[in-house]
């Protein structure tokens, strides 16, 4: 930067006045702000059109949602849920008819699902923590048969703290869990929770 010789001046450095290109000579405005000049270029056409376009779009968008039936968020939501329950009622009755089934189910899948979903409450070895010990022959709910365990997992025991799993697990996955639970019966893990419920042999 050039060293100042004068003690007083208009601009910080006199070289700061704008460089004006040849084709700009006619459109320089006569104001000067600390050496800054402004050109009187017109608004770019495409920019103006874009502005208009967004305004037109705004009107159409508002009309689409608010002045045609059934497009509000609430309407769409209700519609999606109606279709859902109709589909569901079919498939739910299917599931109810299916119940426990060994088709597509496996102990391995059951074991890994158990670790990720159930161990937090029933313990890594199903010894029981929040939920009861699942390795003994005592049951609080149902009789310990495949169908009964299937049903317990499916609908849960919400008032006692176990959610219904049917929204989160496929029928075949629930069956896998049943297979797994049956497979660990009698393992008598360390620190097992004392028996709860009724004995079923």
């Amino acid at each position: 930067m050039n060293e100042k010789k004068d003690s007083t001046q208009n601009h910080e450095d006199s070289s700061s006045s704008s460089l004006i290109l040849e084709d700009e000579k006619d459109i320089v405005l006569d104001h000067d702000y600390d050496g800054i000049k402004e050109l009187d270029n017109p608004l770019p056409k495409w920019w103006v059109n874009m502005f208009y376009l967004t305004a037109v779009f705004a009107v159409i968008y508002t009309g689409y949602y608010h002045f045609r039936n059934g497009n509000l968020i609430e309407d769409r939501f209700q519609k999606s849920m109606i279709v859902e329950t109709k589909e569901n009622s079919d498939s739910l009755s299917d599931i109810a008819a299916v119940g426990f089934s060994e088709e597509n189910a496996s102990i391995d899948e059951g074991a890994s699902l158990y670790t990720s979903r159930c161990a937090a409450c029933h313990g890594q070895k199903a010894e029981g923590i929040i939920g009861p010990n699942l390795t003994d022959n005592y049951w609080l709910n149902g009789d310990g048969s495949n169908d009964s365990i299937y049903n317990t997992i499916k609908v849960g025991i919400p008032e006692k703290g176990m959610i219904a799993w049917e929204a989160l697990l496929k029928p075949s996955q629930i069956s896998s869990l049943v297979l797994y639970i049956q497979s660990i019966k009698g393992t008598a893990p360390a620190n097992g929770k004392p028996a709860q419920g009724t004995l079923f042999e």
Partner: protein
Amino acid sequence: MNNHPQTHPPKNDTFQYDDSIVKKFIIATIGWGFVALLVGVVLATQLANWTFNFDLSWITFGRLRPLHTNAAIFAFAGNAIFAGIYHSSQRLLKTRMFSDVLSKIHFWGWQLIIVSAAITLPLGITAGKEYAELEWPIDILIALIWVIFAINYFLTLKVRRERHIYVAIWFYIATIITVAILHIVNSLAIPVGLFKSYSLFSGVQDALVQWWYGHNAVAFFLTTPFLGLMYYYIPKIIKRPVYSYRLSIIHFWALVFIYIWAGPHHLLYSVLPEWAQTMGVVFSVMLLAPSWGGMINGLLTLRGSWDRVRKEPILKFLVASLTLYGMATFEGPLLAFKSVNALAHFTDWIIGHVHSGVLGWNGFMIFALLYYCVPKLWKTKLYSDKLATTHFWVATVGIILYIMSMWASGITQGLMWLGLEDGRLIYPDFVETVTKIIPLYYVRLVGGLLYLSGYLLMIYNLVKTIASAPKNQTSPSYSAPALQKVEHDNNTSESSHRWLEREPDILTILVIVAVAVGSIIEIIPSLTSHKYVALETNKKPYSALELAGRDIYIREGCYTCHSQMVRPIKAEVLRYGAKSELDDSIYDHPFQWGSRRIGPDLARVGGKYPDIWHYRHMDDPRSMAPGSIMPNYPWLLENNLDYGLLEKKLRVMQTLGVPYSDENAENAIEDAKAQALEIGKNLDPSIDAKKISKKEIIALIAYLQSLKEQLHHEPLHGATH
């Protein structure tokens, strides 16, 4: 060359600019910028690997995130704006600031605010409203300091020696006025104690006010002042005339008028009346042109100088800053569409969006300003152009990694949340949608580290520059004639806007009108709709213990990771439960709808798990949800609940219109203790009920269990449309 064709004064005044205030703000910018970025990197690390809070309450994610956002916006960008405003305004107005004392009060007051924020936020002293977390004594201080700044600024305008005010000044005026309005309205609250207050508004009303404020903090703290800086520094640095005066007029007024309407795009699919949501969408779309107007006016000013961009790091920063501004202001309207928002809201896409704005547009503009101003003010040369160029490239790669990883993680997680197969969620397990994106959190961390490294290069470069400054610096004097009174306004050739540029008072009033229109139209109806709901609702207010638990929820900043707004979207209702209703949050002063779901929505978590589940989960989330990245909260099991303020809290809530009876308030403490003991007894036989019932965890559990659907809920006709 005659610069002042209109005035022919006999005598020139001689004056000096106050550059020491500019230097102070510059040094504060450099320091606080480092803090903001460092805290950001710590947070990025904690999301990639949760153990990096070392179980220390004051650096858990929920407490640190507000510190990061406040430091980035108000400390880093804030100090930079003030530096730029003080530097450019004095020169554009040809006068020293009206009062050096007021300037100094502004500077030291602002630093005091930042230090108080840095102390209170990690301690969990927070109002619980995003980007407005600071508690009421600090809010009052902010308002005071801002008013002092405004007085100093408008008095400076009065003593100016340049008749017309340049476009940069219009933007500064819009900033000063609007930020004051936004801050004051959004901070209205009733104190409970020195460090605790409850927002005057609740539920949907609080949400609307909050995002009217929040979005316009982006507009009037991170956009208009930076456009002002752009209009000064680009032509100054490049020594070229501004491309189009007309464009600057149109896009200025369009921006000021339209921006204020866009806030509700943060509340799409919420219980905000849908007409207000739609206004938020369409005004966001209409913002595209006014925003791009600023970008193209900047870029076209660089016309004919592109060869210099290749050589000069400062110009590189400016061009990249404008480009990222253009990108972010294109992405914003896109994200505002209802259909896009259904996917993107609550995900990392939004986090990426805001960082392209702040790291790119604001950060790069600030770096250009610093590299230009530091050598100029300290009357020396930049220590190393090469280092500055390296800074540019390192920071650019950092931003690209940041934005790309957040796009990928946002879209991935958004799709996983919405994925349905045979009417069933494909990924019902929330943790699965979290572990999926952890690798991208590491990419983001690398991006953040690169940006921070570039910043350190800049600090080194600037420190070296300042060290090389000549020892005895004298301030140069300038001269200009004082403004003469214009007796008769007979300058007929002048356009009406030129006339306005001579009358800053009138321009200020017009700005107030422009921002008032959108504000009033959007906010007033929500006040009335809210009253209507309050009469109809059968929602019971929180019990005293639940209220105490809610304050712990706010203190820990759980809202930085958890939303409380089940949107009317099928997948969401399947995952969380019945969609949220207006009266769910009617007594929530402040509302806690949240903006990001790092963890699942909690609006319907009540009754989902037994108390003991929450007890174990809060102590160690991974014991209940393997793979979780939620912090441990062991201190909640150790700290005794402070019952002291409870009665006062209920009284304040009463004042705010929550239907507590006088007995409720009088018996608050006994009621709370009784409820706590009940919960303690049923927790687990192995836990001492008496002892545990005194702890904070019990209040928090009570609060979490209270978050559920209203029974016998009557749909509130008319209120949601």
